[in-house]
């Protein structure tokens, strides 16, 4: 059966594609549940990708690259926080500014430092995150279907895949079972309630934007040093916006957001396989059409099939004490 043969590699591809989406969407989740809209996921990921690739390339140590990626994206998260929280600036403008700034800056610095048309030098396998081969993979590979599922979907994934999917229940637990999470959720709905309860609004929101930065940094490092082998101009390719769409589709709830990311990733995985497929009477399916499906789906689903997506009430508004 064709489908059965295709399925393991389709699932494996879905998971690969989902990783940066999940990380970025959860970055957005923390930020927006705390009341700070984050259009800048894309820029922070791109900065992470560049820092990760550049430092891995120079030092040959991919973990140092990861550290640099996280640090730079966290700084950008804090910068977004400074504009939105301390200076009470417009959150959408700040996010967009970060995206534009990073897109230009990575290109310029890349050119200046590496002289390869804005790219970082290709990374050797030793300076990349590698796949984890589970024990018994060879042994089980003979079993049809299940062997492939074990070897290529459950096992055989990049080492960063596992912490990413462990992060999801952890994020849920933090948000719903801890004091910090309660306060984060509260400050995104009603900062005045948090303030009058004697909890500093500013500190909570900064914490959220920095967490968002860290998660975007990991996502960027994954794209440049796990999925790819070096930095390429604008290599995040709109995944930050797609993550935002997944966040809206998931109604700012952790599990729903995860399912949305997986849905988008699956569509992407299918799209790659649909390249060159000819539908009788129609002709070849344009790849652009398939790639636009996640976005179209978001609009269609939000327009009525999943009900209204109500964002955190204070999201987008700086907290100003009223007279």
């Amino acid at each position, binding site marked *: 059966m064709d489908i059965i043969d295709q399925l393991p590699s389709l699932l494996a591809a879905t998971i690969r594609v989902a990783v940066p989406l999940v990380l970025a969407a959860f970055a957005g989740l923390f930020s927006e549940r705390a009341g700070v809209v984050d259009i800048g996921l894309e820029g922070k990921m791109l900065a992470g990708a560049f820092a990760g690739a550049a430092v891995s390339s120079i030092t040959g140590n991919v973990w140092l690259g990861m550290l640099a990626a996280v640090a730079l994206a966290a700084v950008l998260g804090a910068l977004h926080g400074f504009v939105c929280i301390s200076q009470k600036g417009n959150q959408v403008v700040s996010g967009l500014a970060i995206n534009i700034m990073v897109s230009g800056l990575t290109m310029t610095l890349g050119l200046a430092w590496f002289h390869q048309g804005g790219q970082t030098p290709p990374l050797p396998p030793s300076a990349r995150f590698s796949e984890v081969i589970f024990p018994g993979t060879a042994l089980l590979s003979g079993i049809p279907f299940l062997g492939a599922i074990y070897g290529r979907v459950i096992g055989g994934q990049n080492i960063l895949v596992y912490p990413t999917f462990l992060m999801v229940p952890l994020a849920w637990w933090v948000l719903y079972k801890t004091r910090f999470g*309660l306060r984060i*959720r*509260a400050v995104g709905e*009603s900062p005045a309630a*948090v303030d009058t309860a004697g*909890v500093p609004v500013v500190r909570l929101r900064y914490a959220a934007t920095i967490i968002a930065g860290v998660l975007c940094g990991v996502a960027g490092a994954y794209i440049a040093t796990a999925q790819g082998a070096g930095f390429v101009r604008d290599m995040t390719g709109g995944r930050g916006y797609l993550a935002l769409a997944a966040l809206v589709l998931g109604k700012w709830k952790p599990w729903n957001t995860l399912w949305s990311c997986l849905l988008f990733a699956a569509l992407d995985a299918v799209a790659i396989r649909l390249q060159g497929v000819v539908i009788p009477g129609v002709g070849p399916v344009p790849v652009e059409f398939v790639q636009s499906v996640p976005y179209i789906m978001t609009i269609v689903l939000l327009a009525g099939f999943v009900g209204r997506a109500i964002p955190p009430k204070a999201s987008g508004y700086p907290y100003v004490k009223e007279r």
Partner: protein
Amino acid sequence: MPPDPLANGQTPAVELRGIDKRFGTVHANRAVDLTVQRGHIHGLIGENGAGKSTLMSILYGFYTADAGEIRIGGVPVSIAESKDAIEAGIEMVHQHFMLVETMTVLENVILGAEGGALLSRHLPAARDRLKTFSRDYGLDVDPDAIVGDLPVGAQQRVEILKALYRGAEILILDEPTGVLTPQEATDLFRILAALRTQGKTVILVTHKLREIMAITDRVSVMRAGQMVGHRDTSATSPEELGELMIGRKLANRLDKAPVRIGAVAMDVSGLSVRDAMGVERVKNVSFTLRQGEIVGIAGVSGNGQNELMEALAGMRRFAAGTVRLGEADITPARPLAPDALRALGMAHVPEDRLRTGLLPSFAARESAILGYHNDPAYGRGPLLDWGVIDRHTATLMQRYEVKPPLPKLRGSLFSGGNQQKLIMAREMERDPKVLMVGQPTRGVDIGGIDFIHRQLVAMRDRGCAVLLVSVELDEILRLSDRILVMFDGRIVGDLLPEAADERQLGLMMAGAN
């Protein structure tokens, strides 16, 4: 004013001395002194803008005073932020609740006082404490209910529970009855009395003299940023307090000429209105409005009055029914836009003056012609004639006592009462046949209320049909020639003010009949 000495020499719960606060050019508090005895319910009364909210915000740590001293239980304290006030045992129940509506009662109560990083470890204990409070103070709320689903009275109880949970000894309530039904207000007063019995100190900020007389032990009066008097409640009268508040004698009686009912001005039959979610908000409502009468619609906010009003004003399509206005029959199939309704002699003073009444960020003169801006009198062709409009606005401002009388001042810079007077001036000036007014005195001070009431009665005496929607029972009773009571989208009562007593109206408003 010298500090208010206590008769029995006990250490007071709260002492404020020489509190001074400026906001730019506005001197909100001038050397204010206040002494509140432990175990008392202390009333703080004054008109809007008298400085009582500022004073309480300073005590609660929302603002810091420019000068002055705060003593709690005899000890000087510095309160720079809410946290300091909470540590000193001071809690405030705000007029607009400080609640997270999407969360449960329990989550709201523990917010900021969770007890530790892991919620599961502390939730059971919190739940037990809530039960104790419910028992001791008669504060009944389901800890697992989502706050946004609760009625307003219950949300207020959540606020009080929150305060008690944090160990409040001194509880400030800011205009707590504004949003409550009379029955809910009675419940609240019972709770406050229980708090007093348990030795808590309560500061009740209000502008309602009746509440002060009903529940407080002592009362302090503020006017124009200053403290103008302290009285034992048992030794004062509403008249004396009213005079202290506004600084002159208040003509309390509204002399209304006997009603002279004329022809039918508006006839509403079988009107139903659905909201955007398809929920029926107004259910098969019928009534008649005649010239020369004020019909008051009483009801707790959110029982369809607002939707009814908007439908009649053409701001909202209705689902079924007929409205006969003069010669026109308005039906769902043949709706009329607000513009067309105005041309038929209907005027509307909307309930939410900042959103639908005027343009807060525009100059007063622009708001003064809003809706009538196509009148050829205000311009030539497509151009507005600002000279004419300025003169027109200045005349309106003078006649309706809008202060300051500056046509070019931004709408948001007028006080609530003056904004309202400007809107009323605009709508009344056209001598409409039907005038609909929603919450005409919400957030308006006593002097302004009196003026607005007199204007409404004058309209009626000139033969205008006035439809008044208000959640203030006093206002309904004072003005109406006929009272309709709305509950859950229906009219559940139709009575004459002489035949209505407040208890009975309250029961109708709560749907008890």
